[in-house]
């Protein structure tokens, strides 16, 4: 009893001596690192907006940015788990290329012969085959790493060459096009967006989910009598979360279809063409929706499932994990299989977006994916990283690239800048972590 009173006093004393900013962060349990990244991203956005004369922060550019980020963001969520366990995967770009090519051949050349052109089942069969193939390739890598003890760097470096070569081999370097009409929706574009009404519905569901999650966690903690967040902090988090979601929806809903497409649509559906043009909002692009769902599922896997717990324990102390009776080798195989599956999803997004499968698809994506994860706070020393951080990292990388294109910086300089930003970001992170200790 004495101890409880003592700690309460200590806590009270501690909170009294803290300044309001510190108290705010402790009460809301906001990750200051993540907040720093959001801040950096806002600086990038505002900077490019000024430099490009207001072209960056337009609904159109932000919508495009979200679509361009989707593919790397999907892969970055898996790369977090790979890096957390002190591994690396250099083959994701090549797996993307190979799986994309196989999916391309399947839907453009094989399935039409069997099922007929634009059969409704084509996209499902294609995607399923891609997911299985990706998982298979990943599991193969994982098995070699875990059971034959070849370092992941070497296995996936080999994979980088093997699968890129295989991509080339499948069609002897020929580009495969066009993709199935339904499959193409996964790539975004005017057709591949869900429209204003559906977007608002998604937004409202997201807000309900935020409220439910926060309320549920409070209820759980109350049930066991654990310390609770102050009520104002709960309200604050709920409000900010919902405002961000609804704000993003408002942005994508204010980007209208291009005039030509809107006109064709109006003609086809017998809608009279109004004087000021027809305003049909895009809404959320399907690839972005896919990426968000992947992010949520991966966050769930990494924080709520036993598998995720093992991944982090394995990264923190492989020996301890092994001694605790965890089948560490199988965990490694599963991580790489999962990574392969995510590559397949990314492959679907990028082939659908391009409406073609080429043998150069996904080149350098492994580096952007790793960079996104690392900028997003995944420690190469293992044991640390979040899915949300990696996705935000992907968005930061893409913002830089899109921004430089908008401002008119040449390609060679773009790469130089991205390279330097990566190094500086990791250095800042090192400084931050050293101070946090």
């Amino acid at each position: 009893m004495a101890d409880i009173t003592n700690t309460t006093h200590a806590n009270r004393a501690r909170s009294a001596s803290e300044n309001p900013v510190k108290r705010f962060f402790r009460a809301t349990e906001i990750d200051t690192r993540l907040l720093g990244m959001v801040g950096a991203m806002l600086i990038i956005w505002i900077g490019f907006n000024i430099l490009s004369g207001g072209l960056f922060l337009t609904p159109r550019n932000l919508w495009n940015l979200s679509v361009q980020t989707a593919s790397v963001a999907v892969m970055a969520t898996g790369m977090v788990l790979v890096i957390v366990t002190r591994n690396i995967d250099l083959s994701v770009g090549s797996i993307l290329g190979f799986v994309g090519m196989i999916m391309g051949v399947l839907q453009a050349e094989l399935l039409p012969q069997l099922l007929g052109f634009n059969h409704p089942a084509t996209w499902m069969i294609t995607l399923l085959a891609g997911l299985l193939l990706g998982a298979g390739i990943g599991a193969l890598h994982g098995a070699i790493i875990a059971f034959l003890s070849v370092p992941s760097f070497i296995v996936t470096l080999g994979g980088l060459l093997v699968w890129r070569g295989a991509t080339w081999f499948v069609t002897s370097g020929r580009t495969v096009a066009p993709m199935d009409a339904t499959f193409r929706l996964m790539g975004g574009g005017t057709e591949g967006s869900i429209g204003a009404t559906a977007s608002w519905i998604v937004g409202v569901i997201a807000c309900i989910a935020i409220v439910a999650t926060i309320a549920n966690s409070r209820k759980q903690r109350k049930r066991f009598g654990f310390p609770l967040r102050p009520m104002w902090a709960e309200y604050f988090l709920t409000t900010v979360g919902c405002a961000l979601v609804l704000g993003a929806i408002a942005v994508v809903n204010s980007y209208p279809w291009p005039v030509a497409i809107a006109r064709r649509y109006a003609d086809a559906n017998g809608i009279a063409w109004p004087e000021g043009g027809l305003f049909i909002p895009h809404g959320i692009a399907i690839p972005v929706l896919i990426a968000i769902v992947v992010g949520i599922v991966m966050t769930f896997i990494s924080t709520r499932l036993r598998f995720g717990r093992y991944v982090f324990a394995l990264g923190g102390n492989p020996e301890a994990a092994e001694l605790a009776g965890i089948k560490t080798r199988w965990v490694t195989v599963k991580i790489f299989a999962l990574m392969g599956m995510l590559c397949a999803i990314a492959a679907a997004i990028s082939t659908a977006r391009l409406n073609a499968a080429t043998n150069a698809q996904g080149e350098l994506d492994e580096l952007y994916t790793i960079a996104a994860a690392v900028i997003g706070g995944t420690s190469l020393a293992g044991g640390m990283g979040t899915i949300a951080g990696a996705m935000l990292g992907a968005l930061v990388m893409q913002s830089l690239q899109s921004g430089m294109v908008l401002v008119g910086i040449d390609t060679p300089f773009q790469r130089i800048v991205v390279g330097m930003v990566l190094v500086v970001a990791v250095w800042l992170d090192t400084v931050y972590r050293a101070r946090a200790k």
Partner: protein
Amino acid sequence: MTDTRTPLVEMKNISISFGGIHAVDNASVDLYPGEVVALLGHNGAGKSTLIKILSGAYKRDGGEILINGEPADINNPRDAKKYGIETIYQTLAVADNVDAAANLYLGRELRTPWGTLDDVAMEAKTREVMGRLNPNFQRFKEPVKALSGGQRQSVAIARAILFNARILIMDEPTAALGPQETAQVGELIKQLKKEGIGIFLISHDIHDVFDLADRVSVMKNGQVVGHARTEDVTKDEVLGMIILGKVPEKAIPGPGAMQTA
């Protein structure tokens, strides 16, 4: 050793070698319920290796292990845990980057009916167990890395006793601790003894364990020098066993005893 009860653990003629070096050579030790046996020896004497065979971290080349008189098949840490053998390693073997509850339940997580981790229930149980061991412990949400040596040690111990261990192996349990924390661990060992748990204490420092142990078994160069009850021998005599392999009169010599002739 007139004990007629069945020993909790009997390791008989255990051998293991790494690349031609006999790390443990024909070693036998035993442990009775509610007893503390200190396994002593220099660094590299083979005591940690011997005990890692019991905890399933290494596979023995020869010999057998009996638990309650029955042959036990221990090939990995999971097998050992099935027999109620829990180990606290010298390196503590905690995952630094996750919190106390995650470490306590590592490998045996509680799950909700939907198959997800039941973090709240795990935290509740952790608070209960840690409250018993170390009432001052309050940092449940922080990664274990942020804790002091003693706090980390209490996490490791809590982890071992959480699952009703019958046999507890402690490898240098007090090596990383201050005097006050060492005393705490001593109290804890006495408490566990009362509950009928058999404890192996491994140490290269006799002063750490002499007062806690009922018996000592000394190893040297992979072999057992001898066994003795702590009430029958002095610290100096035990030191002689450790350093020279010289077995005092009241002790039982093993295969590693210095040949006196």
